[in-house]
C-alpha cells in the first residue's frame, strides 16, 4: 500500500520525500481538527454536569 503510493509519486527522491511529509502533515491535521474532536466526545468521563 505505502509502496504503491511511493512508486506513484512523481519526481526525484527529494521531491517524493517532501510530498510524503506534506501528505502525513495533511492527514495528521485532519485527524486533530476533525476526527479526534468528534471521537473524544465518545470517551467516558466527558459528562461532567448533572442533567
Amino acid at each position, binding site marked *: 500500500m505505502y509502496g504503491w503510493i511511493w512508486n506513484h509519486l512523481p519526481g526525484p527522491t527529494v521531491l517524493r520525500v517532501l510530498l510524503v511529509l506534506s501528505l502525513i502533515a495533511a492527514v495528521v491535521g485532519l485527524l486533530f481538527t476533525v476526527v479526534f474532536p468528534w471521537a473524544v466526545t465518545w470517551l*467516558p468521563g466527558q*459528562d*461532567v454536569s*448533572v442533567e
Partner: protein
Amino acid sequence: MTADRVRATVGVVGELLITAGVVVGLFAVYTLFWTGVETAGEQQALEREFESTDPEPPEPSVEAAPPQAPPPQATPEPLPGDAYARMRIPRLGEDWNWIVVQGVDLADLTRGPGRYPDSAEPGQVGNFAVAGHRATYGEPFAYLDRLEPGDEIVVEREGQEHLYRVSTSYVTGPDDTAVLAPVPREPGATPRTAVITLTTCHPRWSSEERLIVHGILVGTSSTPTATGTQT
C-alpha cells in the same frame, strides 16, 4: 500466483494494522496533551475578554449594601462560551486560576469550567453552580476530590470578589439535579444563603457518577484591581 497474492494481502493488512496503531497513539496524544494545549489557548483569550469587560469599578454605594440587595445594574445575560467569572481554589495550587465561561454544553466546557445558565450569580442568594472537566481539556477539576471542608473557593466577577468555603462534598448520580437547587438537595425550598456548587465526573475518566462539592459564601469585597482603577 496464489503465494504472491497471499504475501501481498498480508503486507497490506500489516500496513493497515501499523497505521491503526499510529492513529490510536496519536489519539492518545490528542486526548491527554493536545486538548489541554487548546484549552490553555482558549483561556488566554478568555483572560483578555474578562479583563476588558470585568473590572467595572463598583459604585461606592454598592459596597455598603447587604448581600441580599438586588444587583445595582441589570447586566445582560452573557452568551454561551463567554468569559463569566474568575475562579481560584488555593487548595488545588497557588496558580489554580480559571476563567469560568457561561454554559455547560460540551463546546463551552472545552474552554474552561462552565456556569449552569440558570444558576444564581456569584455572591447572590441561591446556588451558583459550575461544571468542569476532570480529565482532558486542561482538567480544571481533576483533583476536586482533594477539597476539604473550610477550603477557599474565590470567585471574581464585575469587580467583586466572593469568598466561599467548602461545606460538603459527595458522590451522586448523573441525573441528580437536586444538587443545583437554590437550596441544594431541597428542591422548592426558599434560599436564605448564597452557596456554590461544583460538579464533575466521578470516578475520573468515567461518566458513571458525579462528584459534587458545595460551599457557603462567607464574604464579598471589591477586588484590588477594581478599586485601583478608580481615580
